[in-house]
């Protein structure tokens, strides 16, 4: 495996580096033009270029090693990606108890159902070279849906504390008082995916389709397969967005049906629950 990797490196690295040098030159030219207008981004740009190159070379090496693994390795990679996605999404829910776990559940459920479904129906091959890239797309979109749902739900509830508490004061279930905000949160998380589906082929030709065509697949089949992927992304996002909103909703109230998600204090666990029974 290592020999293969080294061979790949020796044959491709020099060509890639030459192409990268061209791209970097163009980028530095833009930096110089910016400097002419007193926009100083030289240091930051150089650092970003170096960092980006090193990271991508590192990722390439890791993938070159991993892509020779079996389906189990692929599933482990997807699991790790799901965890990383949960870490990212949970940053939108700072202070909410168990936010990381809730995001992990939601993303794992959304992406998991779709990936397992695709594997079961033969739409997706268990070959690690296909499973990981397609799975990562689904996980990434589930993560975005998750983050967008949390953001919208928190913003709506904290902007309508009066309405929510008016409902509670009238004896409503907590779920009833925030029902409109659950709906808007899930809708907001699905909207970008719906737009993506609508603009498919018109505004953008996704990478999977392009890759399949480059590797010799029929353009029509490549197009249909890309459609399937986007639909699966929509399904995974829907599950993740809905599930995380419902889970976060349970954390927005204390056991005594008191609203604890409030503006200015992004859901710090307050003393409200101390005396709750």
């Amino acid at each position: 495996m290592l020999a293969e990797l080294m061979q790949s490196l020796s044959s491709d690295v020099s060509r890639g580096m030459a192409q990268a040098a061209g791209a970097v030159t163009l980028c530095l030219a833009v930096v110089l033009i910016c400097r002419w207008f007193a926009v100083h981004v030289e240091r930051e740009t150089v650092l970003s270029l170096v960092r980006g190159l090193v990271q991508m070379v590192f990722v390439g090496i890791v993938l070159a090693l991993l892509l020779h693994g079996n389906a189990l390795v692929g599933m482990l990679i997807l699991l790790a990606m799901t965890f990383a996605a949960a870490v990212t999404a949970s940053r939108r829910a700072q202070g909410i108890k168990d936010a990381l776990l809730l995001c992990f559940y939601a993303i794992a459920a959304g992406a998991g159902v779709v990936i397992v479904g695709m594997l079961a129906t033969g739409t997706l091959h268990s070959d690690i070279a296909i499973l990981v890239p397609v799975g990562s797309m689904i996980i990434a979109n589930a993560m975005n849906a998750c983050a967008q749902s949390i953001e919208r739900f928190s913003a709506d509830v904290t902007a309508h504390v009066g309405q929510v508490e008016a409902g509670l004061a009238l004896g409503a279930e907590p779920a009833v008082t925030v029902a409109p905000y659950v709906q808007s949160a899930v809708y907001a998380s699905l909207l970008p995916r719906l737009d993506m589906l609508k603009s498919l082929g018109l505004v953008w030709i996704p990478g999977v389709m392009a890759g399949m065509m480059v590797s010799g697949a029929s353009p029509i089949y490549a197009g249909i397969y890309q459609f399937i992927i986007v639909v699966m992304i929509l399904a995974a996002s829907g599950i993740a967005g809905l599930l995380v909103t419902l889970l976060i909703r349970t954390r927005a109230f204390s056991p005594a049906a008191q609203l604890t998600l409030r503006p200015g204090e992004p859901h710090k666990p307050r003393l409200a629950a101390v005396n709750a029974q």
Partner: protein
Amino acid sequence: MSHATPIKSAPVIEYAEYAPQEADRRPTDWAAQAIAVETKNLSRAVVDKVLVRDISVQVQKGEVLAVVGPSGAGKSSFLRLLNRLDEATGGTVLLDGEDYRAIAPRELRRRVGMVMQMAYLFPGTVAENIAFGPLQRHQTMSQEQIKALLDRVALPGYQDRDVSTLSGGEAQRVSLARTLANSPEVLLLDEPTSALDEASAHGIEELVLRVIRERQMTCVIVTHDMQQAARIADRTMYLEAGKLVAVVPTNGVSHAG
């Protein structure tokens, strides 16, 4: 399904003719009355601040108790503890002698209704807002019941009005009617007139006074207006920095203020 407690039809209040009368006040021998609400060493602290500090007070059935004090004294914080919108970090509240933590929060809040400083009406019609509380218990209010309640708060024919078209005073009347639709035993009022202009505030105050007198409701009202406390309440409790400073018959506070 019918409403739990039938809502009596009543004539529209003629506000122009109404002014609080001394005769409206009930006997001030509160010790002889049954206790509706009792707080026992009630406290609430958040992070690094004590909002309500060790308050013990009794409110008799049918009594109107005003809570006054300077801004930040903990008046609203105290009121929010009475229907458990916030959780006490010390002490408790007895409702008809029963520890309110033993009562399901939803049932507690039906029994202890609250009108907030702002109306916070839900999008929709006036009728939908009024029917909201009973609907949470799967009880549907009839059109007659809604109409009677609207008559009660001097908004006849308003049932189909969209709440977005209401003035501040009208919205607060709907908010009061919405709370009354739950047939609460205790009414909490959190500065219900402070966000209104003088004319609307005066109307709401008269309305509140008439309703609580007619229904013989136990009422706790937060106000920053000593004169309002004197007009409405039987007794007044004075808070400062979350602490109970005094509970006195209203006249005493009125004279002091």
